[in-house]
């Protein structure tokens, strides 16, 4: 199946065209994308480190997860809204960019994983998962989000 026409259609959408034809909109959207990325990074990292036995070890894992959940959701929404706007403005370039496809793949897996398995481990009663399971859950989360961030930055280069 040929997806190019779909990406051409994305690029021709009104939001895509507006962002592309403006000098300042893309940079401004990028700034918000980066700021949201930092917040997501911090809230995911704080929980993952806790699961690995570092950082906020004096706070129960479930409580930390609950407290950080709204910030995670907020930053994810901001990342996706700004990300979609940037994508629409240069969809055809993204179509030919290998890092873009890696990034989207990592992102989809990371989001599904975060809101299913990872969340279950984070919000479980203490002791319902072994320490090694916690560690694996945290490492997988770190690896997936690292993949998103790393390949995301490379869209600019390839």
């Amino acid at each position, binding site marked *: 199946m040929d997806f190019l026409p779909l990406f051409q259609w994305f690029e021709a959408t009104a939001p895509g065209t507006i962002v592309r034809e403006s000098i300042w909109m893309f*940079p401004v959207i*990028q700034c918000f994308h980066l700021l949201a990325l930092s*917040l997501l*990074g911090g809230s995911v*990292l704080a929980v993952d480190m806790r699961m690995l036995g570092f950082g906020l*070890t004096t706070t129960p894992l479930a409580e930390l997860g609950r407290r950080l959940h709204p910030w995670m959701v907020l930053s994810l929404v901001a990342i996706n809204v700004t990300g979609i706007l940037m994508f629409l403005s240069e969809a055809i370039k993204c179509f030919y960019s290998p890092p873009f496809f890696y990034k989207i793949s990592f992102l989809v897996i990371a989001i599904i994983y975060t809101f299913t398995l990872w969340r279950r481990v984070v919000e479980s009663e203490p002791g319902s998962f072994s320490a090694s399971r916690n560690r694996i859950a945290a490492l997988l989360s770190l690896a997936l989000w690292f993949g998103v*961030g790393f390949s995301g*930055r490379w869209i600019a280069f390839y």
Partner: protein
Amino acid sequence: MNLDPFLQWLEATPGSLYIRESTLLYPIVETTHVLALCVFLGLIALLDLRLTGLGLRSIPVSAIAGKLLPWALFGFVLMAVSGALLFYSGPIKAAANIFFRIKMVMIALTGVNALLFHFTIFRKINDWDSAPVPPARARMAGMVSLVLWCGVVICGRMQAYNWFTH
């Protein structure tokens, strides 16, 4: 003081040329810079959100400061080293960039803000450690830090566009 001869010398060193012209190293350094930002700013933001009373209210301030700041510092070192390498790869262009200059001033101001916080209201942390909403001085320090670091990120991103170059 005229820095131009120094910048020209720096830009002509083999290391600078090597990073500037490498197809792999430059993107790797830049990616490290962004990911280190997530570690540093993300963790600092959690402390700032706690200080402003906006988030993590049930967790003592001293716990967040004591347990997360060392990791934030690790992120800062990674960010500073990768940032220094990025500067080194094109010092003349960077130094002439208005956003780079504003960014450096803002980073210095975050340092002043952090020191002021540390030597004033943080000394009496025992009085407000578990307060859901910290005292005004602490809220102010958190808000100033958030605003300044957001400014640093915005200037850093804008630096790449090279507008209004001196």
